[in-house]
């Protein structure tokens, strides 16, 4: 009986989903014909680029707020900060520091705003964060495509389009590229492991580990488990939720900064577009659910998800002589993972709901 229970416990989404990803990745890799080294190098790069972004999703899940698709807002905040700094031509290290300061400031502010909005829509956080993401994207475009050059003026004209209005589609980050990327490079065979950057990602992972093991973290977990009970226990649930969103948005800002720095090119209007979906899919691929997410889910998930992502187009080309089919597979996996996580999770929702103590006659 115990073995049966153990077996049943093993075959749950936490283990099943990563297992499926491993299987699919392996198969796709075989068909792609790409070398193991190439794939591994690519995955390590993705790990560094997307690591912090995926990590930023963890705390909102723990707080019971589901998948935070609004991390795009954090990404946009840091991109805004970047454009301002480049616009005013502050270079070098002071530039980077300024980007971080302004970025953190903006993202904290926006996180606060988002937290407030989500407190009004308890139970419907996920759909709201998607809409928030889209809405802020329009505002972002409005500012940078229409505002720059008309209402807002910056000294650095290089970043403005030739017609005089709007920021260019791509801004070169040449000055930041290759600075810290290849720091402490470890070479094993054909595999390149940039230790410094990996340590940075792990540092952020450690930070989340720490924060969840504090009094604050316990309150977050309580709120995520049962809001009503938390209120009776004296926890200010609304405040906790706002703090969680600030944390998530600020982390996303850092994550996007690392991402952009690593790529070296800044696609002003598209860099942040799929951040939310890809990061969420990666988190889920690692075995997380919309109710439970751990650091290991995030770290493992990036490997699993991006491996599949990297090999799919080539596999499609080899199998069907049509690379596009591989592309479709990527989209399907990304959206499909999230769809499945949403469908197969609502079951455990109402298990522990207890009624609030209502006075008689009310």
């Amino acid at each position, binding site marked *: 009986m115990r073995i049966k229970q153990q077996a049943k416990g093993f075959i749950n989404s936490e283990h099943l989903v990563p297992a499926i990803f491993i299987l699919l990745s392996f198969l796709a890799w075989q068909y792609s014909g790409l070398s193991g080294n190439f794939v591994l190098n690519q995955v390590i790069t993705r790990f560094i680029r997307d690591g912090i972004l995926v990590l930023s999703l963890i705390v909102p899940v723990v707080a019971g707020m589901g998948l935070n698709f609004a991390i795009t807002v954090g990404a946009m905040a840091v991109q805004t900060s970047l454009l301002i700094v480049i616009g005013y031509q502050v270079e070098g290290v002071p530039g980077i520091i300024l980007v971080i300061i302004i970025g953190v400031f903006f993202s904290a502010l926006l996180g606060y705003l988002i937290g407030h909005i989500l407190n009004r829509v308890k139970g419907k956080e996920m759909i709201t964060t998607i809409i928030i993401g889209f809405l802020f994207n329009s505002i972002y475009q409005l500012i940078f495509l229409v505002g720059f050059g008309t209402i807002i003026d910056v000294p650095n004209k290089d970043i403005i389009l030739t017609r005089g209005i709007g920021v260019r589609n791509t801004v070169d980050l040449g000055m930041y590229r290759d600075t810290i990327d290849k720091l402490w490079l470890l070479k094993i065979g054909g595999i390149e492991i940039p230790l410094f950057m990996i340590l940075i990602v792990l540092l952020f992972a450690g930070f989340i580990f*720490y*924060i969840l*093991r*504090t*009094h*604050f*973290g*316990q309150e977050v*977990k*309580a709120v*995520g*488990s*049962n809001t009503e*009970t*938390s*209120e*009776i*226990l*004296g*926890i*200010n649930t609304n405040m906790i939720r706002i703090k969680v969103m600030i944390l998530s948005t600020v982390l996303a800002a850092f994550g996007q900064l690392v991402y952009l720095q690593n790529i070296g090119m800044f696609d002003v209007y598209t860099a942040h577009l799929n951040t939310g979906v890809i990061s969420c899919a990666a988190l889920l691929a690692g075995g997380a659910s919309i109710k439970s997410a751990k650091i290991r889910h995030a770290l493992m998930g990036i490997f699993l998800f991006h491996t599949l992502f990297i090999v799919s187009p080539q596999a499609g080309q080899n199998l069907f002589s049509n690379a596009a089919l591989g592309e479709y597979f990527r989209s399907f996996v990304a959206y499909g993972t999230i769809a499945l996580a949403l469908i197969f999770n609502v079951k455990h929702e109402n*298990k*522990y*709901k*207890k*009624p609030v*103590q*209502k*006075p*008689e*006659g*009310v």
Partner: protein
Amino acid sequence: MKPILEINNLYKSYKSIPALDNINLSIKAGEIHGIVGANGSGKTTLMNILFGNPIIHETGGFQGEIIYQGKKINFKNCGEAILNGIGMVHQEFALIPDMTVGENIKLGREKTFAFTDRLFGRQYSFINRKQDDESALQTLIQLGISIDPGIKIFDLSINLRQFVEIAREIDRTDLKLLILDEPTAVLNKNDGLKLIEILKGMAKRDIGILFISHRLEEVQHICDKVSVLRDGKLVSQYERGNISINTLARDMIGHIVTKAAAGKREILPQPIITFSHFSVEMPGEEIIDLDLSVYEGEIIGLTSLSGHGKLALGYGMMGMYPVQGEVYYGGIKIANMDAKANILQGMYVLPDDRQGLGILADQSVENNIIFTGNQVKNMFRIESFFAISGFIDHSQARDHVDKMIQDFDIKCSSIYQKVKELSGGNQQKVCIARALTVDPKLLFVAEPTRGVDISAKEKILHMLLEINRSRNTTIVMASSELDELKRVCDRIAVMAEGRIFKILSPDASDEDFGLALSGEEGVAYEEL
């Protein structure tokens, strides 16, 4: 010795319905003070005020003053109460099911690493899991329980959860006043005694204890002082040595002047429905083991203290909550509780939560009255080629609704008026009219006159009597209002802790009812 808590002239009403009326109470440090009261007595409201439940503030606050440790207080949320050294053991357990025993006990007081305390402050310092669990274990051992602090709450049995709930409060070093809401309700006798010893120990440490319970024997055993609440008023107080179970039971109910609206009559013991080991899993109002036969043509009352199961029967019958056990209707066992099937068989349930599930608030009186009849029995359908689609024959519907409005004196501007605009009493009449439209043989009604003004109350009770006398509809009436049950029922079944405790005749004494509600047998005479 100065009292730790002084309540002076406390008054609280919800939308002009008084819940607490001129309460005067005081508790000394180290005193165990019992609160006893039946439904609607105001116990819950009192606790909510003391513990800072936000609902108090949201519904207009309270009048009067509460002096705690010499200072006037008015808590806006539970956090404030907790900060001031007030603790509460909730009836429904304020435990986080996904967290461990240790985490729940230490929530808010976790053991942390000292250097992170200094660096980042209490809120953000790193928790020392090992030390934390050890500390929790210490508290548990104090309670005489040894469970692994690493077990998650949802893996624990109910009575162990009760102890964890208590442990959380005992673990506190700043506790000055502890409120316990039915702490022994889920415990067996031994565990109950264990708890009482613990409480005595706490009282010795000068912690004031407010002990709310329906188990009168316990109250007599443990309390230094007992206050009896009834209908929001403080009706009596007794000191240790002067506490008698029978007196408490009588005080709880009060003296009910009832004029039986219907004379005593002979009901043939022919069961229309029989429940055998029936249980309903309605959170907060569980029926654990019901054995009852309802006789054809009778009006049987069903009463209990709040949370003891009277409200769950109707909901269980309509498949709203998981049920177990056997139900025989007309001699045939009901395989599963399907609302539609049961309605077609002649059963109908009028829920107590009228606003929540009794009416379609945004729809007209007409639509509300004909709804079930039309949906389940295809009544008021235009019989034509398109009958299958079920268009309403409005003239037929109107005739029926007009008759209902007239017969029951439903006050509305027109049959098209939205039901949410009607008064509580008229809404209830609409509900009963809807029930009558399907002509049920067995009607389950819960709290029929809740939220209804005096004049409408009469009308509604009369309606129920009418239905029973003229159509021979059997009525199972769940209510917390003993006086109305006494007026219309042929028998009254008293439930306690999810089971039928006693079936009393409507003219049984107040004391009998009080004792039955508390699940006490009572004694012929008492040793004082």
